[in-house]
C-alpha cells in the first residue's frame, strides 16, 4: 500500500510546477494548459484522500472538477480564437487592450 503522504506530496509538486508554468510561460495556450495541470494536481489529492478515508465523496468531487475543466476549455478556446481572429499575437504581453 502506498502511503497517502506520497500522493499528497506528488500533488503539491505538480501544483507547484503548474503555478510556475502559469507565471513563466508567455503563450496563451500554454498558460491555459498549466491551469489544467493545476486542476489535475488537485484531483490527485482528492482521490488520494478519498482512498485514505475509505469514502467516495472525493471521487464524486473529481467528476465535478473534470466537468468544470471541460467547460473551462470550451470557453477558453473561444477566447483564444477571438484573440487570434483580431490579428493579435498569442503572447500575453501583447494582449494589452485593457491596459490604461
Amino acid at each position, binding site marked *: *500500500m*502506498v*502511503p*497517502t*503522504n*506520497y*500522493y*499528497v*506530496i*506528488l500533488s*503539491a509538486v*505538480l*501544483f*507547484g*510546477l503548474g*503555478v*510556475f*508554468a502559469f*507565471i*513563466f*510561460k*508567455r*503563450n496563451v*495556450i*500554454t498558460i491555459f*494548459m*498549466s491551469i*489544467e*495541470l493545476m486542476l*489535475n494536481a488537485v*484531483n490527485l489529492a482528492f*482521490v488520494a*484522500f478519498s*482512498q485514505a*478515508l*475509505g469514502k*467516495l*465523496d472525493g*471521487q*464524486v468531487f*473529481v*467528476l465535478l472538477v*473534470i*466537468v468544470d*475543466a*471541460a*467547460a*473551462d*476549455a*470550451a*470557453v477558453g*478556446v473561444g*477566447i*483564444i*480564437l*477571438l484573440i487570434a*481572429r483580431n490579428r493579435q499575437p*498569442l*503572447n500575453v*504581453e501583447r494582449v494589452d487592450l485593457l491596459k490604461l
Partner: protein
Amino acid sequence: MGWAMTAPLVVFFGLAALAVIGAVSLILQKHPIHSALSLIVVMVALAGLYLLMVAEFVAAVQIIVYGGAIMVLFVFVIMLLNAGVEEHTSLSKMAGPPGLLLVLALAGFIAATVARSGASVQAATQTGALSSTKGISEMVFKDFVYPFELTSFLVLVAILGATVLAHREKS
C-alpha cells in the same frame, strides 16, 4: 512496513516520475504543441495512479475526457492557429526567479503541512469490496443529485458562451 520496495510502491514511483518529468517538460518546451504532448503524458500517468488507488471509474474518465476530449481540443486549436515558438521579453525573463521562489515556498509549505499532519491520515485497509463505480453512481444520483444537475447547467452555459465567442458577426 519497512522500506522494502513493494510492487505498488515501485509502480507509484515510476508513474510519479513520469508525471513530474512531463510537467517539467511542459515548462521547458518552447513550442506549444510539445507542451501539449507533455501534458498528455502527465494525464496518462495520473490515470495510472488512479488505477493504483482502485479508482477505476475516475481513471477511465481521466483518459476519456482529459486525454481524449480536452487535449484534442488544445492540439486542434494549436494546429488551427499555427501557433509558433513563444517569445520571451526581458520582463518575462525577469519574472522567472521570483516565480521560482514563490513556487518553492508554496510547495515547501504544503509539504511541511503534510509531513506534520502525516500521522493522522492513515491509509485505510483497502478491501476490494469497495466497488467504486457502483458507489459513485449511487452518490452522484442520490446524495449529489443537485450539484450534478447544476453541472449540466454549467456545461450548457459554457456551450452558449463558446458559441457566442466563436460566432462571426456578419457586417
